[in-house]
């Protein structure tokens, strides 16, 4: 592997995003760190979109840089999800930062872009080191973002919890990785995967341990029970757009990498049977815990955190059932749906909570009277999160059901269905607030800024479109050979 022989063009999107992020950073630096800087936000969105276009246009055939960096449909799809997600988060943030001028705005945007970069790197990596770097770029950016309202006690506390627990989780991941490296002498996932069948025969305990250590660490990152404890607090304390970022982008990127590792390194038949059951149990516990605790929540952000935990449980199901193109299709489809419905919901949540200055669920009271469009859109997002028809969430969820049933894990599908019904209660609690409660006396009609409106409209359109015509996406997905190793 000689550096100069490598096809670096595969990394064009990452490189350009890094450059653009630095550019944004520099511009911010040159324009003074204080004050509102909507133009930087716009620039950031533009950069992300440009990168997204690059992802789409470049390297349709895929390829790899050694065994370090993979460009395959899986990576490209998740990169798109990440970039669009971050772009939408930034559009939400622009409103948020407009309301919170004390936050250093330029830094915020550039760090957000770096986080996106880390996530992109992560989903493309096929090597433990690259992966770790990507993960840490994402994580460290996230720590910073969580504590971005540095004069705000909740925000800093959230950041603290996040950084300490996140650091510990990283240590767990690394500890697990160190064994993998030691046993194979390689950090390449592909090579590890090739060695795995033999290795597993020789050192089942060590392989199992490294797997489980990594599971703990990654389980933490994607907040599945019992590694989820940090999530509600951090989500609640972070600035709302950051919460959106953590719930969606960070989690989906985490999922992508979990799938990547477990597919490449632990994907062979013999070992899949060993851990699929554990994953299934964890998925079940995650769905139950997330949904049940969410029932009792009154804080919107905390509620969404538990809802996100539950959603992570749903996403874990196909992964636990089977690995391959089918489950990837299902996961990616649900990820897209999840991205859109959650970000749409967070856009509305940001708007409402910032307007009312509180994050209690009653801040949604009478939203329908104050802004019908937002209320209707929010309803669609919630209904989609709950998994009711004519929305992307429904199709995504039902696909997961079917996959679970077809993969002989009907019990998991049953738990998922039942907990989904439980989730109706709190999702419809929002709806009740919006439609069936009078607005509080001082609440006036809500002004919806353009950025938020765009986010909401785009999400709404995608959620509904995928709910009615999921074949638009699925037809494309079905042609994909998601990862080379699936053959």
């Amino acid at each position, binding site marked *: 592997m000689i550096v100069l022989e490598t096809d670096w063009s595969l990394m064009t999107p990452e490189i350009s995003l890094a450059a653009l992020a630095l550019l944004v950073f520099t511009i911010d630096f040159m324009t003074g760190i204080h004050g509102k800087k909507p133009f930087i936000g716009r620039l950031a969105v533009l950069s992300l979109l440009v990168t997204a276009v690059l992802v789409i246009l470049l390297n349709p055939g895929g390829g790899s840089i050694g065994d370090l960096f993979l460009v395959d449909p899986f990576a490209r799809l998740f990169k798109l999800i990440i970039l669009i997600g971050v772009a939408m988060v930034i559009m939400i943030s622009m409103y948020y930062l407009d309301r919170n001028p004390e936050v250093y705005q330029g830094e915020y945007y550039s760090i957000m872009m770096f986080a996106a970069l880390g996530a992109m790197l992560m989903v493309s990596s096929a090597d433990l080191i690259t992966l770790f*770097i990507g993960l840490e770029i994402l994580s460290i950016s996230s720590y910073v973002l969580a504590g971005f309202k540095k004069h705000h006690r*909740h925000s800093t*506390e959230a950041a603290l919890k996040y950084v300490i627990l996140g650091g510990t989780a*990283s240590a767990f991941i*690394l*500890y697990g990785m160190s064994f993998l*490296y*030691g046993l194979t*002498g390689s950090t390449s996932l592909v090579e590890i995967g090739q060695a795995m069948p033999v290795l597993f025969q020789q050192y089942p305990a060590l392989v199992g341990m490294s797997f489980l250590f990594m599971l703990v660490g990654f389980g933490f990152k994607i907040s599945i029970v019992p590694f989820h404890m940090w999530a509600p607090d951090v989500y609640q304390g972070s600035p709302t757009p950051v919460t959106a970022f953590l719930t969606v982008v960070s989690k989906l990127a985490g999922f992508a990498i979990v799938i990547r590792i477990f597919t490449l390194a632990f994907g062979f038949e013999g070992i899949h049977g060993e851990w699929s059951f554990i994953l299934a149990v964890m998925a079940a516990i995650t769905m139950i815990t997330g949904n049940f605790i969410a029932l009792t929540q009154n804080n919107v952000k905390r509620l969404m955190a538990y809802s996100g935990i539950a959603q992570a449980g749903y996403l874990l199901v196909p992964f636990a059932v089977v690995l391959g193109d089918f489950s990837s299709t299902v996961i990616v489809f649900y990820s897209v749906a999840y991205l859109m419905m959650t970000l749409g919901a967070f856009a509305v949540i940001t708007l409402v909570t910032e307007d009312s200055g509180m994050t209690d669920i009653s801040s949604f009271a009478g939203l329908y009277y104050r802004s019908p469009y937002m209320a209707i859109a929010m309803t669609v997002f919630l209904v989609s999160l709950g998994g009711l028809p004519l929305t992307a969430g429904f199709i995504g969820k039902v696909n997961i059901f079917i996959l679970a049933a077809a993969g002989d894990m009907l019990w998991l599908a049953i738990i998922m269905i039942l907990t989904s019904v439980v989730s109706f209660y709190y999702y419809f609690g929002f709806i009740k607030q919006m439609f069936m409660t009078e607005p509080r006396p001082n609440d006036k009609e809500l002004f919806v800024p353009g950025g938020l409106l765009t986010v909401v409209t785009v999400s709404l359109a995608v959620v509904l479109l995928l709910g009615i015509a999921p074949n638009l996406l699925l037809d494309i997905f079905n042609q994909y050979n998601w990862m080379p190793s699936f053959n």
Partner: protein
Amino acid sequence: MVSITLFLALAAILFCIGLYGVLTRRHLVIVLASIELMLNAVNINLVAFSAIGPFANITGQVFTLFVITVAAAEAAVALAILIALYRNRNSIDVLKHDLLRW
């Protein structure tokens, strides 16, 4: 030739001590230091494997370098957050920071 098991055991012990520190110490700086300890356990593992592992090669040491670097970055961010927190709350006692709960 020293057996690799010894290094692994040392790393394991270090990791556990670090974990214990993270979970029990009330001083946040010590908690941070404990995390460093855990990461260093990883480093020992990597270096040991790199030197005398079954498939000894240089990659492990490269990995170690990356881990050290990232650990430094993480520590920097963590300390920054700690300072921000201290400014807000005048305390770096772990137990004091429970505004966000339930």
